[in-house]
């Protein structure tokens, strides 16, 4: 047992001290005198969120299989402990060894959503690491960023020594070998980074320079030295069935968001919804071998003792071996009294049958994500879900005993009109009507159906066909939400429909950070200096502080969010090659504006560019199909 970094006095004072004591089941403890590299992996949010993230568990497992590497974990201290650590100058520590992070070789930060950027600064600050990479000396850990947000790393470029673009399984070993070699030769930080920048997938911001046009748009983005690649291509694991996977994930003591075994059945998505960033970034679709998945499931259940298992992927219904896997899990889990938590599935006879077997129908609800209210707008966003499919699915579900339906929509999508918004209300109403039409009065439980319609605000993301789209202002967003509410109020079955909408302020800021450039590092520093962090937590997000910071830096929210972008604009993230080409994204954007859909990868190749990775769905036979759009 390692001595704890925090005193008993502190641990007795703070909320959930178990967040900070480590020593969880399957946590890896090594002899620090016998390892060459000490790596600490960070998720810049509270423990319960960070511990629920599969990616960290995969990398934690991978690093710790390397004999001379010890990988530990750290999360954002909650506000109560944060205040104490600042007051008492306690350096942020890793959970396993309880040693200060500033003494490590690497601090790896996974960046999953834009609103956690200020928490990155919190972590660096508490760790007593200079916030800006250029202020860091030789004795400070190399700060590496990874995860989906690093596909546009520019707003946070100044805070990182290095970004690893793409999937972590492939290049870390070479990176650490390079580090060890450089350390041996005493080459120093700068030289290590210079050499690292030449490894595949690595982006070292200090060796690139941005210049801007008078109107503020990017003029050029170029390496500052010879030999530094102008384009960074994402890393991708093509053999997903034979790679690292954590057979012994760490089991937290306290209840966390994802308190279960997670089985990642595939990477990527065949669908090509035009608003979805993940759907483009993780191309091509790569399925994991079903027999491997079965084996992993049982082994992980045994090693963790979890009472629940869930499947993870972007669109689990598209996993070709889903019925086989689910049948197997139902049988094996039943023997072991394990619950199965289903991912969101396309509603059809198969999924309803499975759901009926693994959930209490009376307590569970049915989820549809039409994302847009009208067929026209669903065609624009390429969401291949029709009203007919939704209503038929709902009817089937109502006969099966379900009475609760959740619907997810977005407001502010490109080309959206009032008619499209009214469609949200009308679709909700039709689903309620279907219940009353299909289910005779005497069979209606409590006599009612509950529809919950939720809207979020559309945020354009890099590497999607909508990267050229203008984002709505906060006022436009709120007008749309009020209009939705009014339309729902006008429906015949309005009493059966509940409507929720998200905060608008943070959605706008998320959009700004998503498509931001290097100049935003200054804004982030200012915002953090004003005391902002945990901005992903609605109750701690202070919009006025953010706006102040923009003003002080001479930048505007409008430039990044609401501005119309021309087709030939150079984007800050264009130097990254994520597999899909800008030409493909342009084609898709133009098709979207015409309301034309594109078939999914399994039906017809759209020539996105991802086939050059030489595997996955790009090399599987197409589905014989005549309903192709």
């Amino acid at each position: 047992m390692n001595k704890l970094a925090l005193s008993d006095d502190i641990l007795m004072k703070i909320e959930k001290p178990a967040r900070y004591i480590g020593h969880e089941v399957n946590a890896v403890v090594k002899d620090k005198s016998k390892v060459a590299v000490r790596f600490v992996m960070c998720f810049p949010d509270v423990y319960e969120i960070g511990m629920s993230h599969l990616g960290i568990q995969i990398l934690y497992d991978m690093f710790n299989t390397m004999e001379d590497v010890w990988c530990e974990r750290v999360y954002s201290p909650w506000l109560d402990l944060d205040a104490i650590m600042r007051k008492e100058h306690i350096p942020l520590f890793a959970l396993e060894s309880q040693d200060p992070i500033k003494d490590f070789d690497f601090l790896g930060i996974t960046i999953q959503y834009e609103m956690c950027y200020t928490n990155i600064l919190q972590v660096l600050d508490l760790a007593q690491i200079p916030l800006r990479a250029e202020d860091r000396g030789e004795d400070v850990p190399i700060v590496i960023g990874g995860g989906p947000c690093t596909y546009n790393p520019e707003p946070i470029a100044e805070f990182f020594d290095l970004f690893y673009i793409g999937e972590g399984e492939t290049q870390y070993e070479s990176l650490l070998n390079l580090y060890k070699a450089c350390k041996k030769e005493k080459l120093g930080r700068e030289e290590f980074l210079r050499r690292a920048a030449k490894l595949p997938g690595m982006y070292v911001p200090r060796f690139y320079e941005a210049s801007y046009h008078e109107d503020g748009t990017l003029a050029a983005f170029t390496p500052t030295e010879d030999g530094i690649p102008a384009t960074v291509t994402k890393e991708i694991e093509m053999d997903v069935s034979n790679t690292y996977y954590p057979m012994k994930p760490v089991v937290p003591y306290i209840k966390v968001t994802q308190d279960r075994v997670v089985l990642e059945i595939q990477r990527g998505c065949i669908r090509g919804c035009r608003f979805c960033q993940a759907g483009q970034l993780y191309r091509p679709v790569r399925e994991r071998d079903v027999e491997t998945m079965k084996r992993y499931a049982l082994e992980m259940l045994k090693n963790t003792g979890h009472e629940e298992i869930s499947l993870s992927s972007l669109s689990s219904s598209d996993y070709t071996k889903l019925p086989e896997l689910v049948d197997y899990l139902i049988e094996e889990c039943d023997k072991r009294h394990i619950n199965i938590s289903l991912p969101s599935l396309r509603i059809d006879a198969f999924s309803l049958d499975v759901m009926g077997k693994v959930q209490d129908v009376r307590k569970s609800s049915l989820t549809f994500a039409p994302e847009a209210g009208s067929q026209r707008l669903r065609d624009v966003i390429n969401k291949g879900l029709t009203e007919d499919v939704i209503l038929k699915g709902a009817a089937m579900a109502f006969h099966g005993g379900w009475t609760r339906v959740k619907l997810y929509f977005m407001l502010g999508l490109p080309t959206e009109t009032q008619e499209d918004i009214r469609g949200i209300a009308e679709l909700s109403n039709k689903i309620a009507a279907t219940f009353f039409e299909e289910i005779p009065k005497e069979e209606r439980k409590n006599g009612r159906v509950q529809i919950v319609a939720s809207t979020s605000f559309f945020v354009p993301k890099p590497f999607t066909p909508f990267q050229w789209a203008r984002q709505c202002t906060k006022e436009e967003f709120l007008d749309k939400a009020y209009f939705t509410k009014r339309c729902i109020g006008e429906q015949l079955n309005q009493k059966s429909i509940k409507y929720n909408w998200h905060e608008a302020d943070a959605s706008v800021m998320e959009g700004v950070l998503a498509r931001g450039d290097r100049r935003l590092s200054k804004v982030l520093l200012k915002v953090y200096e004003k005391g902002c962090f945990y901005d992903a937590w609605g109750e701690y997000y202070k919009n006025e502080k953010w706006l102040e910071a923009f003003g002080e830096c001479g930048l505007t929210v409008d430039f990044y969010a609401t501005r119309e972008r021309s087709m030939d604009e150079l984007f800050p993230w264009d130097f990254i090659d994520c597999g899909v080409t800008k030409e493909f994204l342009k084609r898709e954007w133009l098709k979207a504006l015409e309301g034309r859909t594109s078939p999914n990868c399994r039906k017809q190749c759209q020539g996105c560019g991802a086939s050059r990775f030489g595997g996955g769905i790009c090399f599987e036979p197409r589905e014989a199909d005549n309903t192709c759009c």
Partner: protein
Amino acid sequence: MKVRIKFRKYGPVRFIGHLDVMRFFQKALRRAEIDVKYTGGFSPHQIMSFAAPLGVGLESNGEYMDIECNSVTSSRDMIERLNSVSVPGIEVVSARQLPDWAGNAMASVAAAEYTVRFREGREPKFDWTHAFGSFLSQDKIMVTKETKKGLQKVDIRQGIYEMSSAPSSDCPAIHLLVDASSAGNIKPVKVIEAFCDAFGEKLQENALFITREETYTNVGTSEERRLIPLNEVGTDIEESTDMYDNINGDGNIKTANREGMEDGL
């Protein structure tokens, strides 16, 4: 078959709350492949009962939980299996079969024994090692207790069964035996607060390091208590010599053996 498990809790895991210790054991029982009985329904759960909850920050040498099993191997095997899947600081020390008449762990608790140490620099100034007699000679010891109805003044004198210098410890400490039944549970910190209070001092914040040494049940009467440790109600489960005892109802050989076989391959 009901099995009572006794465990220790010490070190960093002191900061894990009672509910999380329960969750820990639910998972540990699965990892150890103990053949626990489950309730029915869509979210089946293990049939499990814990004795007196231990406060966050306290250490214990005498925690208990009861489980119901479909089949068991032996006390020794269960202890070994649970410890092999446990974490540093949670250590199973006994697993004994309960007679059918035994009440569950929670309902059985009558008293708890504690060793209380003052943290360095937080000892009271009065000569406390010689003050127990006069403290206990009071007819009433009133403390404020948080109840569902708000703060209430209650007399805890009757619930303090023993209070003296703790024997053979590295630093001066207090031995306490107090009521721990669900109706009259007394927290050790309340006793020490009243103790300091009685001598005109205020107990400092987080001044105590408390170890629960044992949890007792009363096999006497309410007038004449006869306290025995909770695990003395049960009996050790002997290793069976008959290999067929190791076969479950469904015909599967128990995992411990099956794993052994795989290792041999």
